[in-house]
């Protein structure tokens, strides 16, 4: 018979059981495991020959080693990752790499020159999106057997089609696409002529500090320490959970369910930055926000109008009031942190000068034009601020918010007037951005090379020639000087108002140490992450 006492006992037991369930769910993350909350739905593949997104690049950077790399404490310095040393021939076309001994894949097998050759040839043969970083040296499917070869188990020889600056080649090889895979593992999974791409989309075969255990799209990625890594991981397991909402990331961090939150908004970062329970880790990224002015619009093609727009924008005010934590003011096409980046900021809000320039251009009352931008935060807010700035000098932008890919599609078709866009560097060399912003070999509508300069209809034969000369310059110091000069001219004359550089901010619980955020995504390093 059910009595009041048995009911009370049953209720008490139920409460205690539930409490136990919740305590298990709420306990601090288990020892030896780091839980990171991050937006990971940009990732479409884990194959370094194909991956070109932020999250994919970051994971590849922790799962694979490359021939060369750049340390996060001095990103401009090139060091060997798998390569112990390298030499260049006198004609600057043949490069010989000597591999370090004792570098091992997760399987325990030693990394050999054969693996390096296979990995680089695989990139060339697959010819996926990031392959141009390697292919631009003249490697093709037809010549790769001769141009990428191993001369002994620890020596790799690369032969480029044209004389090449050593630093340019080494920076490109340090990109995620230059990751070295274990040939035996990948080739065993190859189907037809896919070079194991189908399997590699969801798995790993690298020698980095971690290996991929599982990836469930839009849900989670689990990494486990590679026991054979030369640079061993400090934590046994890292679980990256897809948490799209920044508020949910913050709550999880505060409750102790997450050790690291990667996508907090500016106001949330401000809220925790003075709290000694958390550590804020930040790093400038090689990602720029800029206003593009289409030169096909005859008004925007006038140099005074371009200059007026650059002088009408309140760079400091926008940064301070809208994105104080997540962006920094930057005005040249090479982001700070990349070799040769110019940190000069020649433009600041000057409404009177901007109005004067507009009048000189024959538009004292301003003009109307379209303004495309990605509607998501914080770009939408920044676009509104730019609109207000331009309105102050009489320019009346018609606001056209859209999805990022829709905006890009429109600018690729050169159908915009003004557009607020984001650009991230593909690899560490200055040529990555220089090629995008200041090369336009064919300004015709059917041109094959749709660089950012082409998309804005900017016909620049002279600047194109100078940019190509810079990438071919073999003297590193002279090369850097050439890029600095290019950026100064670009700042003054280009149809781009570079406004801001992205600052990535991660917040960790104070017991967590060792997260290094890189200038490029693949330089974000998990190996040293550990918690007390």
């Amino acid at each position, binding site marked *: 018979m059910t009595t009041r006492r048995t009911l009370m006992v049953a209720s008490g037991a139920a409460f205690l059981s539930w409490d136990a369930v919740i305590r298990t769910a709420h306990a601090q993350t288990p020892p030896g495991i780091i839980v990171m909350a991050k937006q990971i739905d940009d990732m479409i593949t884990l194959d370094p020959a194909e991956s070109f997104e932020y999250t994919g690049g970051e994971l590849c950077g922790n799962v694979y080693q490359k021939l060369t790399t750049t340390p996060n404490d001095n990103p401009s310095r090139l060091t060997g990752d798998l390569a112990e040393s390298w030499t260049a021939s006198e004609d600057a076309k043949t490069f010989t790499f000597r591999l370090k001994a004792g570098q091992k894949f997760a399987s325990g097998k030693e990394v050999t020159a054969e693996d390096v050759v296979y990995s680089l040839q695989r990139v060339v043969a697959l010819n996926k999106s990031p392959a141009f970083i390697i292919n631009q040296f003249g490697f093709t499917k037809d010549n790769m057997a001769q141009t990428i070869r191993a001369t002994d188990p620890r020596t790799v020889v690369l032969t480029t089609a044209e004389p090449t600056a050593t630093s340019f080649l080494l920076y490109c090889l340090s990109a995620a696409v230059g990751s070295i895979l274990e040939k035996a593992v990948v080739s065993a999974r190859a189907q037809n002529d896919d070079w194991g791409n189908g399997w590699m989309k969801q798995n790993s075969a690298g020698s980095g500090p971690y290996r991929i255990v599982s990836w469930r799209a839009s*849900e989670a990625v689990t990494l486990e320490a590679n026991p054979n890594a030369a640079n061993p991981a400090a934590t046994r397991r890292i679980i990256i959970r897809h948490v799209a909402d920044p508020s949910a990331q913050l709550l999880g961090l505060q409750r102790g369910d997450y050790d690291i939150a990667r996508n907090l908004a500016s106001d949330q970062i401000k809220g925790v930055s003075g709290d000694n329970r958390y550590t804020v880790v930040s790093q400038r990224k090689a990602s720029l926000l800029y206003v593009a002015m289409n030169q096909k619009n005859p008004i925007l093609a006038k140099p005074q109008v371009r200059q007026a727009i650059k002088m009408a924008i309140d760079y400091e005010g926008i940064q301070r009031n809208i994105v104080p934590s997540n962006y920094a003011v930057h005005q040249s096409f090479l982001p700070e942190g990349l070799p040769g980046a110019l940190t000069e900021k020649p433009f600041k809000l000057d409404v009177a000068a901007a109005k004067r320039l507009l009048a000189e251009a024959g538009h004292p009352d301003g003009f109307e034009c379209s303004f495309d931008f990605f509607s998501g935060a914080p770009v939408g807010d920044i676009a509104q601020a730019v609109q207000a700035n331009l309105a102050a000098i009489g320019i009346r932008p018609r606001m056209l918010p859209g999805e990022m*890919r829709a905006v890009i599609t429109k600018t690729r078709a050169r159908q915009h007037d003004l557009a607020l866009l984001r650009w991230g560097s593909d690899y560490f060399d200055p040529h990555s951005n220089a090629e995008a912003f200041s090369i336009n070999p064919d300004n015709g509508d059917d041109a094959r090379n749709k660089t950012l300069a082409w998309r804005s209809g900017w016909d620049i034969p002279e600047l194109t020639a100078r940019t190509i000369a810079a990438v071919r310059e073999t003297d590193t110091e002279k090369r850097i000087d050439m890029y600095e000069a290019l950026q100064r001219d670009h700042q003054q004359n280009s149809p781009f108002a570079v406004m801001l550089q992205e600052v990535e901010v991660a917040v960790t619980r104070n017991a967590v140490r060792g997260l290094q955020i890189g200038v490029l995504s693949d330089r974000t390093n998990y190996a040293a992450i550990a918690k007390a």
Partner: protein
Amino acid sequence: MLKARLGALAATVASIPITLLGLALVTFFIGRVVPIDPVLAVVGDRAPADVVERARIELGLDQPLYVQFGRYLGDILTGNLGRSVMTSNSVWEDITRFFPATFELATLAILVAAILGIGLGVLAATRQGSWVDQAVRVFCLAGHSLPVFVLALISLLVFYAWLGWLPGPGRQGIIYQDMVETRTGLLTLDAALAGDWPAFWDAVAHLIQPAGVLAFFSLAYIARMTRAFMLAELRSEYVTTARAKGLSRSRIVWRHAFRNTAVPLVTVIFLTYAGLLEGAVLTETIFAWPGLGQYLTVSLLNADMNAVLGATLVVGLIYVALNLLADLLYRLMDPRTR
């Protein structure tokens, strides 16, 4: 009689493929006219011209639209929904992974919403004008008018962050991740089948908040509709007669009035359920719930058209199936339709 009923049923069933064909046609052509280049989703913004061109040919985008649609239709009929660009999996594989998460969430939500919504609706109707009726009205108004993402954030803040009664976002706790073998995709059921009761209770605990938010949102509508239906029935002459005959209040309400409101309520509940199964995007986003709504939205924003088309067809199929079921129940419950 039976022949007529079977004929009506056959006509309903026959309309399903036509509905799905129409859905596929509309979705396909909308997908092709959105101002996003689908090649961008595959190769990204930086790919060289030859890579872009190759991807365009591989996707069949160089063919006329009717050829593309014909090919797509042929693939669907052979069970091939194509491959998702965003996840690298076949779309069917993705749907079998994302749909169970939504199904688990939506089913619990609709059960709670239906039970509470009907209860509150009947209560409000039988006490029309009283403080109980007013309280139910305010409660329902809050559920129906507060944006669901606000409800979700408030729920997380109160029950997760402040009180600590419920776990945070996600379908399961870290320590149970990858521990339960996937059989059905329904975490609670898989954990129960595996006899892993701690994992089962963990999955239940993770379900409560998102299901509760969706239930609150849905029950508001169900309660308001129940109240309206009940009021109409309670004013009917047969209810007056029943009262005059001295039947008890509960008998009048539940055995007579409610039985008649149950018929239109079936449609309300089934359509609400279909809406939930479609995926509650905002709730899934805030609770990091890897469901169909989130899959569909992310795919749409990235012009991953195979995924969009596949998921849309599944959603369409659910709507059609639930409509059919509601129709059948309607016929069973309402003698006038026989």
